[in-house]
């Protein structure tokens, strides 16, 4: 009788441990995730000004012409290389007399001393405190048939104790996500900078490819996850708590911003396909090249001809 009780106890303990490791989790409802606001476009006025001469007026002194066979990289992955024969014209020309660009010397800014300004120092301390809360998230995502994703989180980017989980999210939707914030119930904000590698696994393609090599395909063991709300299951025993929190926060972000993320990726993929179709319909040809060289001499000494 005692022996049976012991066996039952051991079995129950094992089941509990298993349950802890492979529990279907969702992001806490009390957290909210959001993408950062779009960055403001660069002000054209901030760019370095060049002399407003579209093309210098060249007086040609000599010309060499070559026909060159070129093979250039395709404009997009998956397209054939850009090949053809181009004409390379090299002109030796007289100095067109362009204005010498101004050599701008930027004075080194004087470091102000705010140590006697308590308000500023308090702001600085707050900023440092906030920045210390920023986190880097290193995640590898393998998306299976665009419906389930195997996630591996690397705490602090190290490979010692990776945490693996399965998610019911298509992590391709995170493709454009570089940073995000999650605010917890108590008001604390966690800001993440996401280092995410995404790969895709297509079962049928894999099966067909292996079949050509007479290799049987063994599909991965994907745990059962609910449809609908973002959910995940950690399969690593004793996972790093920060990684679990990261997984919760990723799922909170997707719960709150997922439709926008999916729409962005869909728009990106459509633009990608449109661009590819354009290049297939209009294969680019390598362009002829013209180069001009001239001698400038502001010193009066002859070192060149």
């Amino acid at each position: 009788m005692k022996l049976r009780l012991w066996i039952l106890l051991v079995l129950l303990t094992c089941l509990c441990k298993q349950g802890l490791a492979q529990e279907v989790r969702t992001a806490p409802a009390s957290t909210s995730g959001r993408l950062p606001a779009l960055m403001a476009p660069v002000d054209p006025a901030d760019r370095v000004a060049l002399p407003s001469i579209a093309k210098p007026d060249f007086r040609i002194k000599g010309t060499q012409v070559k026909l060159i066979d070129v093979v250039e990289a395709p404009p997009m992955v998956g397209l054939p290389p850009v090949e053809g024969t181009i004409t390379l014209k090299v002109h030796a020309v007289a100095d067109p007399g362009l204005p010498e660009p101004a050599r701008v010397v930027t004075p080194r800014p004087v470091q102000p001393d705010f140590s006697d300004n308590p308000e500023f120092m308090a702001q600085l301390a707050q900023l440092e405190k906030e920045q210390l809360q920023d986190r880097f998230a290193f995640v590898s995502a393998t998306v299976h048939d665009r419906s389930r994703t195997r996630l591996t989180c690397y705490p602090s980017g190290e490979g010692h104790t990776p945490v693996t989980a399965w998610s019911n999210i298509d992590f391709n939707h995170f493709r454009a996500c570089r940073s995000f914030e999650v605010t917890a119930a108590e008001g604390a904000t966690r800001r993440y900078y996401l280092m995410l590698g995404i790969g895709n696994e297509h079962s049928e393609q894999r099966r067909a490819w292996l079949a050509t090599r007479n290799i049987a395909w063994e599909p991965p063991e994907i745990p059962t996850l609910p449809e609908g709300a973002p959910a995940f299951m950690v399969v690593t025993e004793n996972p790093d708590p920060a990684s679990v929190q990261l997984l919760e926060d990723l799922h909170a972000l997707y719960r709150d911003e997922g439709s926008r993320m999916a729409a962005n990726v869909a728009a990106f993929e459509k633009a990608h396909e449109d661009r590819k179709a354009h290049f297939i319909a209009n294969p680019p040809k390598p362009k002829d090249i013209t180069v001009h060289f001239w001698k400038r001499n502001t010193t009066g000494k002859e070192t060149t001809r």
Partner: protein
Amino acid sequence: MHLFDLKYSLPAVLILALALKSGGDPVPQAQVTFQPAAQDTFYVDWEGVAGRTYFMHFSTNLVDWHFAPFIDFGDGAHQRGVHSDSDRFFLRLYYGDFPGINSLDDAMYADFDGDGLSNIFEVTYGYDPFESESTLDGPDAELDPDDDGLDHATELALGTDPMAKDNPMLQLEVTVD
């Protein structure tokens, strides 16, 4: 051509030194500086070393390199301007300390590859002054791209234009009574 892309600072990092001085370490070569001057145009400056001969290489794919049509020599400030309509354009300095080369004229009229064509002739007409066969068409000196019956060696000796049909023998008029 976008002047502020990384590709234009790249050549400054990738300057390849061809130091051919016999014996002893060559005098270090100062970096080339690149400075935008106008649209698709930039200035290329470097400080020369006494006794050093300078060529300039350019490329649009970092695989095929061509000689610019000039030769520079010696110490002092070397100042060049370059304009290219290529989307990608790379430059590098190609230099050496050659025994017996003591002036710009020496550098221009020497024949480093010994093919009978002077260095300045080769770079002016798009050949490699360090290769006697720059192309797959045969020895540089035997080529006749203007198809006037005179190869480069002969055109150089006669002082005719190797890119124009100006064979003096073809211009003779013969009148038969």
